[in-house]
């Protein structure tokens, strides 16, 4: 039993994730040779068997391959890359949803993510209840939630729908509420993933204004993931170009965009 136990712990010693709420640390996020590999099994049975035996064959796909970068506090960084470059995987590791296979990740400060905004809500609960629910998970007290609630509802422009179950919402309404919540809770690190295409043009404008407002606070670190170089240019001073999981170019935003457009 004891020898198997050490086998169990091994992956943890290879991959190290450090997470704290130290928002005074000059470094916000540090990736040190981070690799995230997905195991592709032949079928579901093989995946199931792999839980009990190490001898099940699989193909390995590296979504992040030896990825290293450091983001300092207050920086606004754009991740550029084609589909499958590993942007979303890196963001998932930063938000803590996904775990690296090897390497070291340090995240200092609380992360709020605008990832796939319309997801992450419970369809049975009303918009108002979902705000309370998410607020709970974020660690807010009941008073803090009560304080934020009108601001969130106002921004999302849901009107009477706020007390309806969320399964009746349109995708635009869900996304608006998602954006309103994630941008209202004062995170230390804000992750924006293609989120600014929310709703119609007028609402998208409002979102842009909100992100600008958040970024004017020099303590907030913003990570921005996009295919569109124009919005990256608008927000960010630095760009990191990813390709097949690797960090292939890391420089000033103008140069990064030029490089990115060169390879596409």
């Amino acid at each position, binding site marked *: 039993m004891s020898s198997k*136990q050490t086998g*169990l*712990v091994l*992956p*943890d010693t290879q991959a190290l994730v450090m997470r704290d709420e130290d928002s005074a640390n000059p470094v916000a996020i540090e990736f040190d040779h981070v690799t995230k590999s*997905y*195991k592709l099994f032949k079928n*579901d*049975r093989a*995946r*199931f068997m792999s*839980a009990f035996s190490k001898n099940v064959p699989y193909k390995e796909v590296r979504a992040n391959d030896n990825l290293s970068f450091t983001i300092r506090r207050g920086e606004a960084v754009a991740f550029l890359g084609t589909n499958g470059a590993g942007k979303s995987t890196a963001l*998932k590791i930063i*938000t*803590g*949803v*996904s*775990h690296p296979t090897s390497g070291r990740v340090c995240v200092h400060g609380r*992360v709020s993510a605008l*990832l*796939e905004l319309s*997801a*992450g*809500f*419970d369809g*049975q*609960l009303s918009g108002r*209840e979902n705000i309370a*629910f*998410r607020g*709970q*998970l974020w*660690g807010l007290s009941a008073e803090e939630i009560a304080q934020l609630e009108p601001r969130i509802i106002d921004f999302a422009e849901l009107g009477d729908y706020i007390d309806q*179950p969320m399964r009746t919402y349109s995708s635009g309404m869900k996304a608006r509420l998602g954006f309103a919540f994630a941008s209202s809770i004062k995170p230390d690190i804000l992750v924006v993933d293609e989120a600014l295409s929310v709703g119609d043009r007028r609402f998208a404008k409002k979102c842009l204004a909100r992100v600008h407002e958040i970024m004017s606070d020099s303590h907030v670190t913003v990570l921005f993931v996009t295919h569109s170089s124009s919005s990256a240019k608008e927000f960010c001073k630095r760009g990191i170009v990813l390709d097949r999981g690797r960090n292939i170019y890391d420089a000033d935003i103008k140069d990064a965009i030029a490089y990115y457009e060169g390879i596409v």
Partner: protein
Amino acid sequence: MKTLKLILGENWLWRRQIANLALMDIKKTCRGAVLGWVWLFVKPITYIAVFWFALELGLRAGGNTEYPYIVWLSAGLIPWFFMQEMINTGSNVYKRYPFLVNRIAFPLSAISTFFTLSQFIIFLMLVVLLVVLCYVVGAPLTVYALQLIPVFVLMLVFWNLFSIMCSPLSAISKDFYNLLKALSTPLFWLSGIIFDVSNLSSGALHLVLAFNPVTFFAEAVRASVCENYWLWERPDVLLPFLAVLAVTFVLAVRCYGKLRKDVADVL
């Protein structure tokens, strides 16, 4: 060891959220119906009434005991409703809350905990009804009812471990979950929920059922509210269950440690 520390740490750190989420889960279950929480009781009460009608009035079960048959029947069915929910939904709890797995950084073991807790709260409300029933039919509780407290703690711990053990497996393999679901109804008929296990003539069957946690919890609640004996006086009932608990504990920690990082990738 490390995984155990992790599970305990996660559950302690998120205890406030766990309590709130348990209440939220009940709310979610009741949502959408005008009568809301009344439905939580309608199904169990109907079941009890139907089984009582069929078994006592129809098949003339029960009889020569000093407590009414309906108390004995309810004391088995009420824990069964909780266990059924744990087998059907608790064993695949990440499916119920996918967004807690792959949208928000939330400890997976805490999802099992708050779901178990929410079902347990519903169970406790039914236990209150059971106590009322005991007094109404003239079979008041005795000192043996104190035994319910440790039994409930065991129930909470065991089924929480069960959920922590099975949920990652169910997330990874639909076959495993289908197997559990397929077993749920047979378990009801085989586990002595509606018949007395001690009436079985075969010793081998006794031995098999002694290792069935469903049988144990039905017997334990009955021992406390109507059959009136202490579980430690019946090592043939208690010890096999403790063995099952120990095995479940080891497997739960092992499964969780091995698979928790994969769950977000496959869900």
